[in-house]
């Protein structure tokens, strides 16, 4: 009789550990589905959902809400998801300011946060947190790559970014690697739509290159006006200014622009081919860098969920940290501060048939780490 019971408990405990695969996991996705930045959020959602679908784990539930790119709204949604829906993981926020409003208090309440894009310096260094993962990059990375790239052919650079922390980080990152002369460092207003004054300054600057970090609608407006201005100085920027989602709106004005990225559609590896094919089949359009990052975040969570119960924080974190996934980016692993170590390339905007897209020219950095990891004590 005793034997029988112990056998039963054994079976039970085995089935419990085996069942770890099927522990319910609730993910709250907060992203921007309306307003000027909606394109980024929609790609984030779609990339993430593709990964969850491919994982085929019925116990993973995702609830999605629109933050309208408003920090207050994001905070309210996060409160609701944590208090009312009782999610285990939050993810999906595109913008650094919204992330700073949500992520620190989410991890303080014991929830995981896996970032699909935003990666402010403030969370990468001293204030890194065991529950905060970033599946994208660190904000400075792509700017650093352009600084390194500009060393090759450009002696004098005109650099500009919006006047907000990510803009400041951008120019700091660029200057961290650029060794030539910076003729002017210009900060524009956030959400600015008219760049006539800045274009006049570029024309008069005598620089031989322009580095512009203007995400979303700002970049579109700038590039269209720049093309009309008659100024011929070549433009370069980080990948997000020339991501798939904005290229169509900029039009041919973007042709030939050099930009940095940790992924491009033509990156030659098996996982990437499968991903691009699957994304196109599912949604009928080309994926952007945001879709890739969210796809990897989805893969990361699904891979950890297959081996550990999210309620067991330590075990789940250990599984996430292994980054046991096939990323379309090729190599992917986590640094000590739980931000990626990855390769970064320079890409050029080209025309593929009728569609504008990015083509990789050359790698700039291999296994690039961010500048803040050394301050992270974990």
């Amino acid at each position, binding site marked *: 009789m005793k034997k029988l019971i112990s056998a039963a408990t054994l079976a039970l405990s085995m089935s419990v550990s085996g069942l770890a695969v099927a522990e319910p996991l609730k993910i709250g996705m907060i992203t921007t589905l*309306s307003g000027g930045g909606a394109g980024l959020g929609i790609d984030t959602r779609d990339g993430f959902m593709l990964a969850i679908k491919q994982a085929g784990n019925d116990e993973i539930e995702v609830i999605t809400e*629109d933050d309208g790119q*408003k*920090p*207050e709204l994001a*905070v*309210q949604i996060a*409160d*609701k998801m944590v*208090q*009312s829906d009782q999610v285990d993981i939050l993810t999906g926020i595109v913008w*650094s*300011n919204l992330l*700073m*409003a949500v992520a*620190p*208090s989410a991890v*303080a309440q014991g929830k995981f946060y896996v970032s699909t894009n935003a990666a*402010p310096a403030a969370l990468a260094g001293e204030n890194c947190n065991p529950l905060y993962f970033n599946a994208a990059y660190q904000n400075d990375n792509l700017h650093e790559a352009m600084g390194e790239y500009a060393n090759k052919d450009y002696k004098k650079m005109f650099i500009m970014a*919006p*006047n*907000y*922390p*990510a803009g*400041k980080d951008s120019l700091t990152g660029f200057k961290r690697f650029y060794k030539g002369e910076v003729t002017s460092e210009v*900060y524009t*207003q*956030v959400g600015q739509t008219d760049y006539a004054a800045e274009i006049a300054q570029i024309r008069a600057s005598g620089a031989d290159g322009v580095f512009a970090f203007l995400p979303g609608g700002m970049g579109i407006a700038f590039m269209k006006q720049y093309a009309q201005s008659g100024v011929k100085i070549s433009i370069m920027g980080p990948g997000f200014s020339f991501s798939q989602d904005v290229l169509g709106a900029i039009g041919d004005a973007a042709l030939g622009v050099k930009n940095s990225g940790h992924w491009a559609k033509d990156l030659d590896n098996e996982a990437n081919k499968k991903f691009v094919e699957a994304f196109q089949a599912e949604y009928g359009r080309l994926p952007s860098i945001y879709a890739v990052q969210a796809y990897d975040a989805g893969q990361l969570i699904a891979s950890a969920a297959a081996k550990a119960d999210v309620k067991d924080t330590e075990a789940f974190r250990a599984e996430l940290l292994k980054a046991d996934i096939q990323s379309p980016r090729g190599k992917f692993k986590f640094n000590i501060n739980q931000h990626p170590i990855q390769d970064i390339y320079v890409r050029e905007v080209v025309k593929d048939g009728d569609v504008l897209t990015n083509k990789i020219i050359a790698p700039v950095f291999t296994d690039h780490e961010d500048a803040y990891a050394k301050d992270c004590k974990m």
Partner: protein
Amino acid sequence: MLTRETIVNIVLAALLLAVPLAANASGQPFYVTIATRVAILALAATGLNLALGLGGLVSFGHAAFFGIGGYAAGILASHSFSGEPLLFGLSGTKQMPLIWVVAMLVAGLVGLLIGTISLRTSGVYFIMITLAFAQMVYYFAISWPAYGGEDGLSILVRNQFAGVNTMKPVSFFLICYVLLMLALGLFVLVRGSRFGSALQAARQNEVRVATVGIAPYRIRLTAFAISAAMTGLAGALYADLNRFVSPSMLSWHMSGELIVLIILGGTGRLFGPLAGAALFVIFEYLLGGLTERWQFFLGLILLATVLFARGGLLGLLAGKARHG
């Protein structure tokens, strides 16, 4: 003798207390958070009601004071967190009462400054000038990098109040509720005082007040500054509710919403702001759950209120206001 309005007021005050406590008891802390939002917005609108309802000063810039209060809380907390001294060697703080005092002082002083220039004008000029000054503060907050600029400022852990665990939704709600009740009490005191009578008289007939030897300008300026300070206090609480401050607290939509709260509830009435805030947040929650286009319907409701139901919710419930 209780008037119908007093009964409605008591019911409203009791409901605002009872609903979140019941929600908390039945394990629905999110509704407590919603009720806290109602209390804080009502407090902000009560501040505006002093200027707008009693004094007839249509300020379209009260978001400036709301945001300044919020930033006072955020900046003090961030200095307390980082340990860097703030100004003249003074350090930051995480103590709510101190933060409230600072928020009210700073918002009141800015109110005094803006009022000094704006109150030289009247009517539609006043509306536009208060709006423009609020925009000035907004753009300053966006482009001044020291405290996060456009990104805003996180308060990692809610500030402290002696002996209370403020991270518990219900404790924080009670703090806000008590402050709201105190503010409503102050509103009653002001309304009944000589100062309040002069303020209301100045709204109805400026010339007559001036001939009695009272300077309407100084009365209005005082009212405007008190109003700004009260809205600033609400801003500090709002920052603690969200554990986050950003320039959008200063945006002109916020100014518009504060006026909307008063009108929805009933202009110039003691409990107008509370009724309006409750209605607004319920709309936002219910309509927002039903349709992403809730602002469209909010617009329609608001338009209908202005055109056909000028007394607001309290006008419907309690009849015509005694204080027009």
